[in-house]
């Protein structure tokens, strides 16, 4: 039986707890409890971490709901969203230079990470004002360089996430014309585990979930321990406590398991995943073999969206429920 597992995480406000979890020994504590070893690995490049997971190098990796669908699921790797950690509530946004509204974006070049949640956010924003992607020109730009790029005169519109977003909006003469708080619950940050591995090793799911909610409890407090934990996370993500708190403010963290369970059970999740599926299909992300958006089945507690015989992405609240019940 397998006892050694690897989890990959990348720097993002909602995933920083994994760094603290590894450094503070909380993960080891929970792993020991279930008699397994969990190696927490930081990867700098987000897409690379998901690709590595998809290729089988990691058992678990943090990613958004959209990327979980378009990378591992579309590559035939049956994946389970073990922990629904948070959703973006203003952490992603569309910014224009000058005093503008979203409608002014028509005809502009928009710099963003193509095929990422930013792209999705932009599409949803355009939809909300009766436009479509055809009305703008999308320029693929690497996330690390977006802030510098925005300083250039040739760049007038960007869509991005934090902490880049706050760096950009902090520059004078900018307008944030659309953000993820206008589509609440659609950009979800998950811990995804290989379904096969999870089914064979329920201990892994229990240990990870247990560790996660222990940190959530610490973090959500207002005491010195919470400050210490958040300062640690802030520094690891290259900012300070104030900066990190600002990012947390635009993130809807599910500090308790019960909140996350409730979110997972809601029928909205299935509706969101349908939108994501359709967007992904339109952009060719479901693979060349996909005849339509329903090609890949997505299982949620409220039902399955798409092809039930090809379910590759599962929202499984079972472990979070155990955490909520204190059964871990």
């Amino acid at each position, binding site marked *: 039986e397998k006892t050694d597992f690897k989890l990959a995480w990348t720097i993002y406000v909602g995933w920083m707890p994994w760094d603290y979890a590894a450094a503070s020994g909380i993960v080891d504590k929970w792993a020991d409890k279930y008699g397994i070893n969990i190696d927490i690995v930081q990867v700098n490049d987000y897409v690379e971490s998901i*690709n590595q997971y*998809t*290729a089988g190098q990691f058992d678990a990796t943090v990613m958004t709901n959209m990327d979980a669908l378009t990378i591992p699921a*579309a590559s035939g790797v049956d994946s389970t969203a073990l922990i629904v950690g948070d959703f973006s509530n203003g952490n992603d946004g569309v910014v224009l230079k000058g005093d503008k509204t979203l409608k002014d974006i028509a005809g502009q070049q928009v710099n963003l990470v193509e095929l990422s949640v930013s792209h999705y956010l932009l599409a949803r924003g355009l939809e909300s004002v009766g436009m479509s992607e055809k009305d703008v020109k999308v*320029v*693929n730009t*690497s996330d690390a*360089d977006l802030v510098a790029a925005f300083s*250039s005169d040739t760049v007038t519109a960007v869509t991005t996430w934090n902490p880049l977003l706050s760096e950009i909006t902090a520059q004078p003469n900018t307008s944030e014309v659309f953000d993820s708080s206008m589509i609440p619950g659609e950009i979800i940050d998950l811990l995804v585990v290989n379904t096969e591995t999870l089914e064979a090793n329920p201990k892994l799911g229990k240990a990870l979930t247990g560790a996660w909610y222990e940190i959530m409890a610490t973090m959500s407090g207002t005491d010195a321990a919470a400050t210490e934990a958040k300062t640690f996370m802030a520094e690891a993500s290259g900012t300070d406590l104030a900066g990190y708190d600002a990012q947390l403010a635009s993130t809807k963290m599910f500090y308790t398991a019960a909140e996350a369970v409730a979110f997972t059970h809601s029928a909205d999740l299935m509706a969101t995943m349908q939108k994501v599926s359709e967007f992904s299909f339109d952009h060719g992300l479901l693979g*060349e073999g996909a005849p339509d958006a329903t090609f890949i089945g997505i299982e949620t507690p409220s039902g399955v969206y798409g092809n039930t015989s090809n379910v590759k992405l599962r929202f499984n609240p079972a472990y979070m429920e155990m955490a909520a019940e204190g059964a871990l």
Partner: protein
Amino acid sequence: MTRIINRQPSRYGRLALGFLPFVILLLVYIVASDARLAENSADKLLPSFQSFADAVVRMGFEPSKRTGEYLLLNDTLSSLQRLMMGVGLSAFIGLVIGVGNGMVPYMRSPLSPLVTAISLIPPMAILPILFIIFGLGELSKVVLIVIGICPIIIRDIQLRTDDLPPEQLIKAQTLGGSSWQIIVRVVLPQIMPRLIEAVRLTLGSAWLFLIAAEAIAATDGLGYRIFLVRRYMAMDVILPYVLWITTLAFAMDWSLKRVSILLFPWYHGTQGGGHD
């Protein structure tokens, strides 16, 4: 002949041995790919040859559903244009400054230390500054290539200019040549084949910088496509693109060599014989 250093394979032996490692690599790939696909038929990491063929047809020979363009052609043209501009500009600047530094002491004194310092800076690390100065358009991609390879070309050309026998320059002066005439008639023509060599040497780096630039901000290009489809791990597209880039790089190198042999027969006759 008994010493191993004296033993020569026959002509056909050499050919067969040359193919051997490629055949082995191919077999290793096929076995590994089959194994992964047997486990998960949607695996994208090591696609089957059928998937490669499909991807090549899709990218190369069918117009894109979204834009109606032939993507491979479009990407290739965009990338080649950037590469040629970057390399062309670097060669031009390299020639002017390199020959200038090599010939004119009053030019060399201020410029040579500067070029050395610039050549040591890792270009990727100063990308943000480049964006701000040159914007995110085509210019910044060309500039990244130029910053990456131009110092190398300048230093190379400067060395080659220094290496010209001083006897030649003295002789040219006794024939009444002015500084400018000597540079135009004696130095430049002799440096040209060496410039081609310098360009050939830096072409690999130029591709590297091009791909890096396209990965950072672009709407088309070979590097753009590779990094875009990396988002859904489309190795069936990435690997043919890598192969295509390799082929293009090889073709450019080969053409430059041909051009040099054609234009500068005197260089390849005797003194340049050893340069491959």
